[in-house]
């Protein structure tokens, strides 16, 4: 589904990704872990198409198409979804109106009919249950005055609405207490299927107790320096990241 080859990217003069290689197949969950500043969020941002970053080398293919040539909205329509580490607050735009506009643009791009108001509300109510989110929250301005947990649940709600093929969760667990974490993880798990894939970007192993990965990759200085299964995450949790740094140094 996703094939990343020797991806290098920089912001300003600073190179952050130094040649990433990663293959993600349908049905798989990949965790990307690593110390602060290793390039985890940059990788997520580059895949979603954030303009601040310049891709200097490498290729990213998504379902056989060159992802790097697409505008952010085209990537979303192809089925890439980024759950933001820091969801943006937009005063005056309600989540409901925003989702209606987004979903209809995505549906048209995927060759479907747009939803009328009734079908949209029905779908919305169904998806709201997944993350236990209240409609009064969705009537309000997007993320404005939301708690950290509400913002992250709103991200997963949007993901449920848009039914992406590839979901990238950028530090979705940061700032969440354990109850909120369980709700968010539960939502993600319910959306998993054999036809979609998930990349979980996280600093801590805690989230991976609830969203169990098939593969774990350790990112360090803009490169994947180690890959393994979920046991690798436990090892990182127990030993910290220093041993990886030492191993790379040798």
């Amino acid at each position, binding site marked *: 589904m996703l094939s990343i080859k020797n991806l290098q990217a920089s912001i300003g003069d600073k190179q952050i990704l130094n040649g990433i290689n990663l293959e993600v197949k349908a049905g798989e969950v990949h965790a990307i872990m690593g110390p602060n500043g290793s390039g985890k969020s940059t990788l997520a941002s580059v895949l979603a198409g954030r*303009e601040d970053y310049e891709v200097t080398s490498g290729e990213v293919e998504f379902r056989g198409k060159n992802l790097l040539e697409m505008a952010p*909205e085209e990537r979303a329509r192809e089925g890439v979804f980024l759950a933001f580490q820091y*969801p*943006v607050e937009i005063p005056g*735009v309600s989540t409901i109106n*925003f989702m209606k506009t987004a979903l209809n*643009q995505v549906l048209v791009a995927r060759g479907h009919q747009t939803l009328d108001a009734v079908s949209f509300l029905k779908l919305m109510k169904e998806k709201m249950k997944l993350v236990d989110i209240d409609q009064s929250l969705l009537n309000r*301005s997007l993320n404005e005055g939301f708690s950290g947990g509400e913002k992250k649940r709103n991200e997963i709600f949007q993901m449920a609405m848009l039914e992406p093929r590839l979901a990238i969760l950028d530090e979705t667990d940061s700032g969440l207490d354990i109850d909120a974490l369980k709700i968010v993880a539960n939502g993600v798990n319910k959306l998993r299927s054999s036809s979609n894939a998930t990349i979980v970007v996280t600093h801590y192993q805690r989230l991976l107790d609830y969203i169990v990965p098939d593969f774990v990759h350790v990112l360090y200085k803009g490169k994947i320096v180690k890959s393994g299964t979920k046991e690798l995450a436990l090892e990182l949790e127990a030993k910290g990241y220093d041993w990886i740094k030492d191993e790379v140094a040798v």
Partner: protein
Amino acid sequence: MSEKSVIDLIDQQAGLNPRITALREKGREAFLKSGLPQNKEEEFRHTPITRLLQKNLSMEPKANKLAALSPEEIRIDGLDAYQVVFINGIYAPALSSLPTGSDIVVTPLADAVDGGNETALEHLGKYADPQVDGFVAWNTAAWTNGVFIHAKRNAIVDKPIYLVYWHNTESAEVVSVIRNLIVVETNAQLEVFERYGSTGNANHFSNHVTEALVHANGGLDLYTLQNDNGNRYQYAFTRVHQEPSSRVNTYAFTFAGKLVRNTLQLALDGQGIESHMFGLYLLSGDTIADNHTVVDHRQPNSFSNEIYKGILDDNSKGVFNGKIYVRPQAQKTNAFQANRNILMSDSATVNTKPQLEIWADDVKCSHGCTTGQLDEEAIFYLQARGIDKDTAKAMMLFAFAIEILDNIKNTGLRHHVEAIIRERLHQ
């Protein structure tokens, strides 16, 4: 246009409406003293109105003519209102529909003055000081007509008063001088909606002065829609005098025109007063829009809130100057002010200046002004959900602008203004 031509115009009007000869003379004297405002004057520093008028209007003194106007042109779907239409500054009875009840008087000001209406004669010229600037002086000396609205004690006026100021410039440039007087008596409630428009391509100018007195516990909602897509230059001065426990809401929507200069002054002369001033300017092309506002807290325990927002594109220019005065005896005043601007192009500019002068010590006052671009991170967020960039921008601009509309109570009016904003912002 020169000062000489303005004086010629003033002299043309001198003998009209004999009951107010003294007032006209007062205006004439003030004009002879001040002349038209020059750029170096602080109140006109960013708006070269006199220079632009001199350059773009010849203003040979000649009588304006009533021109034809289709009722369809000024009809607003869903707005049920009394209607007073002025074409080239001349009252157009065929297009107007005045109320007939005994609790409200709506009549051309010249008729009220000539007919000896005591309320009109008592209040005309009492609130707008001709010494404010040359335009108010000119207006005082040489107004030709306008509307007199008198909402009597306890009157809840059932429909808004819709005022249309139309210019037909197909055969020549037009200059009109309009004077309005609004009196809202104790416990009365009134909505007034002003709209500017034109037909034709010639340059034109309007000089408007509106005086309003709102008695104790009265309410006035004053809406102004400046959306003249012709070559209108305009000066509009509005002064509202508020007595205890009165409520005034003003809305200034400036969407088009060559140059718009609004001066809005509220004098809060009593306790328990509540005043809201809302403004929204969506500017493009080379439009200049200048809003100068004054809130004068003269007594304790009153509340004022002002929010003006602007979206500026192309080479447009915005000016905002907001003065808040809190007099020494006006303790426990709450006064808030905000001016927010979004610049859509590199050549659009805004000059914004809050000016608070507070002589009382137990007050809550705040002001804030921001000028910036659309939040790139927010645009990316919307794009990341599948929304194209243009739609994302339009959504954000619309959300920014629409906040001002939340406060409009009249739904017909709200829909009309909202539709214009939607069209302008491609929403």
